[in-house]
């Protein structure tokens, strides 16, 4: 649904901006993993495409609010960072397939890189409500880019931090510590959000342990609702066939082992409908 929401609060969280927006309809329908798309630039903006953001937090006050956490990347997020309380924002959401949540009280590791961590907190709340054991692995380029460490420490069994420059936690990648966390926590499942190369690395660790992994894929999106076909990536279906599927409606949450990370940005020769591929129709 489309909502013209009012900005309730804006704050800086280390390297990030956080916006809380009153958006009752969206808050009500929200499930962890959902994202929203935001129109940027105002009414005569030259920026045509909406920007997508994971929903970090949902509250019931003011009829329902959503919180977005974002980093300034280009002109759209720059504009968003200039919003102030009482400004209005045009949101569409909730969008995408949310995280599938285990029915049983299993042990779960949540891996977040930079702003990717934001989407994991509502998931953690849901998992905790189902009596799961939750452990966090959070990372980033530098200390100020690790998001949510305090909150993670508060709610999770353990929280392991890492930074590429070593300014917080262990120096290195989140995947450098993931194996030992999985071992220590006897994890049954991993959820991860962050850049594609991190998702790829997380997936290969989970595969080594032979446990399921759910990753959030961030692809450039023009519509966010499944109609433009710009956000595709090669994913293997239940039938073993690779298809170019839409990150926005078929994802953004995918089973990591189904995503052909090494082929993202290409059309694998064996994908359905690939040029010259076997699936070609003979007319």
């Amino acid at each position, binding site marked *: *649904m489309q909502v013209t929401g009012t900005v309730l609060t804006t704050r800086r969280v280390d390297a990030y901006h956080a916006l809380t927006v009153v958006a009752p309809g969206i808050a009500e329908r929200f499930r962890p993993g959902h994202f929203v798309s935001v129109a940027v630039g105002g009414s005569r903006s030259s920026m045509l495409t909406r920007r997508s953001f994971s929903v970090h937090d949902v509250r019931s006050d003011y009829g329902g609010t959503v919180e977005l956490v974002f980093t300034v990347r280009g002109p759209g997020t720059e504009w968003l960072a200039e919003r102030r309380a009482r400004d209005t924002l045009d949101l569409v959401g909730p969008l995408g397939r949310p995280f599938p949540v285990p029915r049983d009280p299993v042990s779960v590791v949540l891996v977040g890189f930079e702003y990717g961590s934001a989407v994991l907190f509502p998931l953690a709340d849901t998992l905790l409500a189902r009596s799961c054991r939750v452990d966090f692995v959070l990372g980033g380029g530098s200390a100020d880019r690790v998001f949510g460490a305090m909150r993670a420490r508060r709610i999770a069994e353990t929280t392991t931090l890492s930074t590429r420059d070593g300014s917080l936690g262990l120096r290195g990648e989140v995947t450098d510590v993931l194996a030992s966390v999985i071992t220590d926590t006897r994890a049954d499942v991993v959820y991860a959000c962050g850049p594609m190369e991190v998702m790829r690395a997380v997936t290969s660790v989970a595969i080594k342990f032979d446990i399921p992994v759910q990753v959030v894929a961030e692809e450039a999106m023009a519509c966010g609702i499944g109609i433009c076909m710009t956000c*595709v990536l090669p994913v293997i279906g239940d039938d073993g066939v690779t298809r170019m599927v839409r990150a926005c409606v078929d994802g953004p949450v995918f089973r990591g082992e189904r995503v052909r990370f090494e082929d993202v940005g290409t059309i694998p020769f064996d994908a359905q409908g690939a040029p010259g591929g076997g699936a070609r129709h003979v007319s």
Partner: protein
Amino acid sequence: MSVDMRTFLAHVELDGPVITAAGCAGTGRELAQFFDLHRLGALTTPSITMAPRAGRPTPRMAETPSGLLNAVGLQGPGIDSFLERELPWLAQRGIRTVVSIGGGTVNEYSALARRLADAPGVTAVEVNLACPNIEDRGRVFAREGAASAEVVGSVRSIMLGDVPVIAKLSPDVADIVAVATACADAGADALSMINNPLGMAIDTATLRPALAAGTGGLSGPAILPLAVRCVWQVHAALPRVPIIGMGGVLTGSDALQLILAGACAVGVGTALFHDPYACLRIERELADLLQARGFQRLADAVGVAHRPPGSPARHLHEESSL
């Protein structure tokens, strides 16, 4: 009193003039989550090809000032799957459906027409001529009147008479009127314009083209002035041929520009990416604008900008209703 928004696509009547543009409304199921598709004048499908197509690699999109570049490459399931799963879904619900088709040879277009000829639920067939002709060094059909006419003629000869055949034209030509005339002469019942002009963006961080495909189609408000000009020129030359105007329509006022220039229906593409409800909003805004200007029927506004200033719009409505 509310404005009569009915319009004709050749002999097929539509409840309203605002339709989705090809390739911009998914299979219908996606938009159906937002509103009742019966409220559309019609839904146009993505261009259907014979074989399934995986399309182009990503990145497939780049934002440009008031525009969008795309290089999707006609990703789609192919005609079999379309006829099996997608068209029936629309047909069962009675949703007016313009089926767009795309091919690499005249034969492929003919084969598609044969498959569609007896399929139920086809309101009209739109021939996407912006496809590379693999028999002519990949030169796009739409760039040449003769090549376009050949495709249109073959599709027209195959489709049953009561299904209008619409030729979809591209603006990247020296003389849009010549191509339009060739298509009309070849039997096109209506024309649809404009498809995306070819554009490009370079990513100044990677120093490489922003799209994996290199070039891509430009859409969105940036191209509205090109669309208005094409519709104007073609309507001036072929006043009896119905035109679906499209290209950059974001508001009712944009739609009105195309209608005053000569379009009897308006396609909405990129605006849907920004606002899933765009078609409904645009139709409402258009109706309000028409009413404020004293029009009782949409049909009376078609092509009005061609009349000499001061000539009464009212008296001429017999002639301009298609």
